[in-house]
Every structure is written in structure tokens, then in C-alpha cells.
């Protein structure tokens, strides 16, 4: 894997399976706690390491909450209540993530800031750039590094395509491409993403985004 310019090697992260099902407890160091989606752990720890952000601690909720977006808001609120007393500041590293504005409303109610944007693949590209492409890419299905690695757990199996491949057209018939928003320049992930596109019957597009709006969002904490 080739690191992005300016990056040093990332801190060790738990395996994706743990980040998917269990999440990550805080290390209890640092005065600012990031409450993040497990799908972002690797990227956040990489940024923290590369920038020497020792004041940031990280806890992750299970990434598989994305299979039930209506559970995200309550889970974040619970984490805020659990950790609030132990830190000077909490910051939520979720985008809207299909909560239809409920997560933003809850964070506002709790007095906690969060990352802006509709989805992680939007803020990785940069929300403004993502919005500018919205019309042109209406038929795009997006994957990030994490989602490429976990394609079977987050896409293939939950949609039942392992058991009922005939459903592919009902799910993806209106899509025209798979866009891999690459956070890292990794040929292995590139090949895997291309395979994901082939399995879904979609044209493959790869775009190296790096960490996009996530970097400035964390830098100001």
C-alpha cells in the first residue's frame, strides 16, 4: 500500500470484523473524544498519527449500524451520555448517514458538533465537490476503502445477493457505475473494487480522494 503524501505509518487498528460488529473503546488519553463510525477508525487513527494529534481520543460504534440507520442517532446519543463527563469536548464523526437529519438535530440538542455532509463518501471527496457531481453521478454506487474491504458484509450478504443473485437487477438496475472513492492508493483495494463493480454489473470508476473534509474537520478540534 502506498501512503498518501505527508503521511506516516498509522497506529494499529482493530480488524474490520471487530470495527463492524463491536466498535472500539476509547484509549482514555486526550481531552477531546471522537465518537465515530467503526468504518472510519482506520482513517481517523491514521490522521491522528500523521498529525501528532495526541489530544484526540477515539471511540467507535459498530460500523454495522449502517445496516439499520434508524438506530444510529440513539447509539450516538448513548455514547455522548456515557463519555461526556470524562472529556473536555466530544465530537461526532458521522455524516447524516441516512438518518434524515435526526442525527444532526440530536447533536444540536446535546450541544455536540459533528462532521458535515450526507455520507462519509461525500466528505471524503469533499462535500462541495460531491454535491457538484450529484447530477452527473446520479447513477453512481459509492464505496470507500472500508466498504471495499467489507463489501460482502455490507452489500452482498445484507442484500441477499449471495442467496438470490437474481435480485441484482432490482437493486442495481438503475445504477450505471460503481465509484470507488479511494482514501489510500492501494492496488489490492483497486482490484477488489473493480471486482465489486463487475459483480454488480456496473462500470468501474476509481477516484483517489484521500481524507477530504475529514482532515480539516479534525484539525480544528
Amino acid at each position, binding site marked *: 500500500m502506498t501512503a498518501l503524501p505527508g503521511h506516516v505509518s498509522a497506529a494499529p487498528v482493530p480488524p474490520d470484523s471487530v470495527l463492524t460488529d463491536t466498535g472500539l473503546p476509547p484509549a482514555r488519553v486526550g481531552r477531546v473524544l471522537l465518537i465515530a463510525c467503526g468504518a472510519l477508525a482506520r482513517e481517523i487513527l491514521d490522521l491522528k498519527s500523521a498529525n501528532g494529534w495526541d489530544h484526540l481520543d477515539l471511540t467507535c460504534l459498530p460500523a454495522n449500524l449502517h445496516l439499520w*440507520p434508524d438506530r444510529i442517532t440513539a447509539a450516538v446519543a448513548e455514547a455522548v451520555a456515557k463519555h461526556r463527563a470524562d472529556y473536555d469536548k466530544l465530537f461526532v464523526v458521522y455524516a*447524516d448517514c*441516512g*438518518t*434524515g*437529519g*435526526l442525527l444532526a438535530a440530536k447533536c444540536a440538542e446535546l450541544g455536540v458538533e459533528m462532521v458535515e455532509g*450526507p*455520507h462519509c463518501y461525500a466528505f471524503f471527496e469533499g462535500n462541495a465537490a460531491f*454535491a457538484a457531481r*450529484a*447530477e452527473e453521478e*446520479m*447513477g453512481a454506487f459509492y464505496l470507500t476503502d472500508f466498504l471495499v474491504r467489507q463489501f460482502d458484509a455490507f452489500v452482498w450478504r*445484507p*442484500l*441477499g*445477493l449471495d*442467496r*438470490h443473485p437474481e*435480485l441484482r437487477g*432490482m*437493486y442495481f438496475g*438503475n*445504477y450505471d457505475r460503481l465509484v470507488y472513492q479511494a482514501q489510500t492508493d492501494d492496488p489490492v483495494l483497486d482490484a477488489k473494487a473493480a471486482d465489486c463493480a463487475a459483480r454488480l454489473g456496473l462500470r468501474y470508476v476509481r477516484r483517489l480522494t484521500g481524507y477530504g473534509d475529514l482532515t480539516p474537520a479534525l484539525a480544528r478540534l
Partner: protein
Amino acid sequence: MADEEIILSELDDDELVLQMHDDLYDGLREEIEESVGILLERGWTPYDVLTKALVAGMTIVGADFRDGILFVPEVLLAANAMKGGMAILKPLLISTGAPRVGKMVIGTVKGDIHDIGKNLVAMMMEGAGFEVLDLGINNSVEKYLAALEAEQPDILGMSALLTTTMPYMKVVIDTLVEKGLREDYIVLVGGAPLNEEFGRAIGADAYCRDAAVAVETAKTFVARKHNQLAG
């Protein structure tokens, strides 16, 4: 014990209807198509086949989906099986003058290509006796308005799957208000990221969390509208 092969034509009517509920639940399209044919041959009206066999079966599927027993793939397979039965019944329903509850124009909003939920709602609305004009995906306000003017439906249904596209529903509703048309239609909205609060905030009549709720909400609002007109 190994499954014994069931000969559908050998089942009596009650057994066959129950078997159809099972077959819908299991997403067995060919079996549903065969059973629909058997009931029609036995003299059942298309309306009775639709309501007692297909809609009743899909109601069980819908309830188990809501209760977390069934998931999206299973619901899609069931819907696909029902679609097979509906394809046989639809022309017959028209020719036999089955009761019509109301009319709906439905479509996914501009910028959004997702149609699974919308298609389920359209199918269940047809099953409940509504005439449905499905505008498909990526509908601009102009397209909605043209369809409303041409079709004069009771209901406008709008669907969105994306946080980024759901605000377009308000664009459509605001345009209806501007043109003095809002009160002419019942506006129902749905889609995964939506919620009741959003539905209220944009001025819809109701948010419908799934296809079964959409049907019940539509029936309630249409009955109320007809009562108002009669009064």
C-alpha cells in the same frame, strides 16, 4: 421428514389460498402464477383472487418485515412473486370492473434513482384497488405537475432514498401551494431516511414508513376526502 411434493390443483380452495400465502412468503413466483390460474379456472373473480390470496399473503409478509422477521431480500422475492400473479389479474380486473378505491400518481424525486420502495407501494396500492400511474425515477416538479394535471389523481406519492434528494419533496409541495393546487391532492411521502417530523415540516399529509402503512393511510385519507365531498 422430506418435503412431500404439493400438487396445487389437488388442494381445495381454502388449502390453496393458505398455500399461496406460504408461496408468497417464500417468493415462489411460478407457483403463485399457477395457483392464480387454478383459482380463476374454478370460477373465482379476479378481485377475490387478488384480495384473499395475494394481498392477504403480502400483508403477512409486510407484518413480518415490520417485526424484523423478514428482511429486504425476502420482501423483494415475495413482491416478485406477487407481481407474477398481478400480471395475470390486472387485465381481468379492468374487464370485470373490480371496485376502484382511488387514483394515485407516484414517483421517485429528482436526482434519485431508487425505486424499490416506490415499486412496492405502487404494487400494494394496485392490490388495494387504487389505479396507479407510476412516473418512475428522477422526477422534476414539472413532471409531477404535468401528471397531476393530466391524471387528476386523489393522491400524489413521492419517494426518496437519499438525504440529499429528500428535500426536493418540499420543492414539489411548495410549487403546489404557489399554484393553489395543494388542497386538490393528498400528498404522501416515504423513503428510508424520512420520518414523520420531516413529512410534517415539508407540508405533506403523511409520512408512510412502509407499503402497508401507505395503503392504510391512502384509504383513510381518500375516505375522508370522499366524505367531505359528500358532505
